[in-house]
């Protein structure tokens, strides 16, 4: 079931009403209901893979209990913790990376002959997300950041909570689990804010991302014959598309959670208003970057030690981050490319220069800030050529094509001008709203006002905009494939 579908438009209100009207008074029933509807939500896509989620959840649940029970037997709990990580990573590797590594090995050593070696299994939706979430629990219990739960229902609700099950945010047990340990009561302001966040997410997905996708798909499908200017426009649009798609998804997930009295962590913090790549990465896919920071980067030594060591750790983190996105060399190179953009800032000691909000308290950024924002956006966009291309070869040719002699001629034949106007409008509107709201949680956060008519007006206008400017073709969220 995807958020931008009729099924979800029916599912969400039905679940909401049962949850608050019938199960309002009992924590156990609330949690049990969350597990049941979450499994239904996931099973709508493929019920067979529910076994996998249940197995992953059970492994981490038992690991937590054993670690807690034998806290003082260090060697034992180390082995138990490591086994849990190994089991979960093995499952992920089997489903996501096995065929990729076999193909790469066969190309190198077996003349590309993979006969009888490939498994060709479907990648379970959201496996990277819920595996990482379950893993973080085991590690946090081991590190004594959280006490292991002995309530299997609340733990299963934590791993499978449907709004964030298939594409995050990758929650931490320290934030989400305690929310399943106490009875939720209906919070009117939170629910209303959730509705507005869902609307903003839908706008970003249906109007912005899907609108961009039409052009992007067309250009990438025939990039060999496109002019440099077309390739340039397409990669800019893809950079906007992936933001609209993924941050839109995150907004819908966070907004849906708020309807159930659950607060999820923030996943995007207006990354395209960043002044350098380091700031951008602090604001992009926050739940994943902080996951890598806490569970990989810091254990490797983090920013302590020599610059060479910090650079090494950064390279490792970006490579793993690239691999997490998919079993393809393009993702690995995308990660490395971003690392190369990041490392100069480490060398110059400027990677923590921008930690505040750009032009805070002002309407416009300074010219220097504006130039930095544009420069950061363009560099980030350049890296996305690797992310979007099917192979390294295609990415390279696309890159070369960008500098074709026609680059600065405006040959534009993807779509008619009226649709170009719509796309320009929705993109402009998204960035304008987010710029004005950049110090708030999301684009439609109205925490600054108590005027009811204004809130209703904003919601009505947003629904109009979604319906009037939605793209004709709407598709799945890009991050579902990860």
């Amino acid at each position, binding site marked *: 079931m995807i958020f931008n579908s009729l099924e979800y438009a029916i599912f969400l209100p039905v679940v909401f009403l049962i949850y608050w009207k019938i199960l309002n008074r009992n924590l156990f029933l609330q949690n049990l209901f969350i597990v049941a509807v979450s499994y239904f939500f996931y099973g709508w896509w493929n019920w067979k893979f529910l076994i996998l989620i249940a197995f992953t959840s059970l492994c981490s649940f038992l690991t937590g209990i054993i670690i807690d029970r034998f806290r003082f037997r260090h060697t034992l709990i180390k082995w138990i913790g490591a086994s849990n990580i190994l089991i979960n990573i093995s499952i992920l590797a089997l489903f996501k990376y096995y065929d990729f590594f076999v193909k790469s090995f066969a190309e190198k050593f077996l003349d590309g002959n993979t006969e009888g070696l490939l498994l060709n299994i479907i990648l379970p939706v959201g496996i990277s997300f819920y595996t990482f979430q379950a893993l973080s629990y085991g590690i946090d219990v081991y590190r004594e950041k959280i006490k292991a739960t002995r309530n299997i229902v609340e733990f299963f609700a934590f791993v499978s909570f449907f709004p964030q099950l298939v594409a995050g945010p990758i929650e931490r047990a320290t934030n989400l689990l305690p929310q399943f340990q106490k009875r939720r009561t209906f919070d009117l302001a939170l629910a209303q804010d959730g509705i507005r966040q869902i609307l903003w997410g839908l706008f970003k997905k249906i109007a912005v991302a899907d609108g961009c996708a*039409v052009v992007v798909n067309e250009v990438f499908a*025939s990039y060999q014959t496109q002019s440099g200017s077309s390739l340039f426009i397409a990669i800019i649009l893809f950079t906007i598309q992936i933001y609209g798609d993924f941050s839109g998804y995150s907004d819908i997930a966070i907004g849906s959670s708020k309807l159930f009295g659950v607060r999820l962590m923030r996943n995007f913090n207006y990354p395209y208003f960043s002044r350098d790549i380091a700031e951008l990465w602090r604001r992009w896919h926050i739940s994943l970057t902080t996951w890598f920071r806490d569970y990989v980067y810091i254990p490797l030594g983090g920013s302590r030690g020599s610059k060479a060591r910090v650079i090494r750790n950064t390279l490792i983190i970006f490579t793993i981050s690239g691999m997490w996105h998919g079993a393809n060399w393009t993702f690995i190179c995308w990660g490395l490319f971003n690392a190369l953009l990041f490392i100069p800032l480490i060398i110059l000691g400027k990677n923590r220069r921008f930690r505040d909000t750009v032009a805070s308290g002002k309407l416009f950024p300074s010219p220097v800030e504006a130039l930095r924002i544009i420069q950061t956006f363009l560099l980030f966009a350049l890296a996305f050529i690797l992310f979007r291309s099917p192979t390294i070869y295609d990415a390279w040719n696309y890159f070369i094509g960008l500098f074709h002699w026609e680059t600065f001629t405006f040959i534009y034949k993807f779509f008619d001008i009226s649709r170009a*106007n719509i796309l320009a409008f929705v993109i402009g509107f998204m960035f304008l709203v987010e710029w004005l709201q950049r110090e708030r949680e999301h684009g439609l956060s109205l925490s600054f006002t108590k005027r009811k008519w204004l809130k209703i007006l904003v919601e*009505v206008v947003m629904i109009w905009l979604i*319906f009037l400017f*939605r793209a004709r073709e709407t598709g799945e969220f890009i991050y579902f494939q990860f």
Partner: protein
Amino acid sequence: MKRFLLDILLVLVLSFVPLYLLQWKIDNNAYKSHGWPYHSVNTAFQGGIDAEVVFFGSSIVQIDMDSDIISKALGKKCFNMGMSGYSFDYQYNLIIKSYLKRNKKPELIVLGVSPQAFLEHWNPDFVYSFLPYISRPEFDFYCELSKDVTQMDRYLPTKYSGLGIGRIWLLLKNRQPSSREDCFTPMHKDTYNVNFPKNYPLEKNPEIIGYLKEFVQNCKRDGIQLVMVLPPMHKRDFYDQCDMEGFYSLLKKTVGEVPLLDYSLLFEKNDEYFYESTHLNSPGAKIFSHKLAQDILELGIVGATDTKQEI
């Protein structure tokens, strides 16, 4: 909780009532429109045309065949039903069938074909023409095949969204552009970068071929004379990029004895007559229409009436 639900209800009413009213207004204007592209669609779906010669096909028919010129030359009532969207399954199921069901059976059907006719291709633009009728059962077929219209789209307000605010505005103002004025702009230096693969996969579309066979049989059964026309195409930018041999052979195999008038190389690569690689400009269309009418008469495909004018 109650307050929350009431607020939601209020928002939904305030949002959807105007949207459905807007939808109703647009639909209503489209039903009555004589402009592009509703003129043809309304004809097909509302009936009342008693043309003796009807032109079916994609935009190449819409743009290249001037029914006024041909009508004067043949001395018969002609009607151009050409519409954007070149795959024949689309043309047959949504346009030709609807026309023949609701209008007087013509004496002659001129079917414009091009190598693209057998390609599976569902351009999102096609749906625009049918939106006023999209909730009708005929469109079950379309909604199953096409990605552009989901079942949900058929009942949601603002099904026109995503098609350009300019077009919606024209519909609201009831000022649809005339097809010929809209299409005949000065010759573009650019041509479509079609890049058709050589040996394009004709044989892989047995369904489309099946529709063409069915159409030929139905014309025979109903006593309608059928002629196929291959309109002019730019030699360098289109003709040479297609597997024309394969196309001719498939057409021959599919439609058998139906006459085929081939004008594909009428203007070769003379840019003067082309709008772009597959469509003619106004002077090109005039010359082609005269030539087509002349050939229809000379070959005796249809007899001229007394009102025939000199070509």
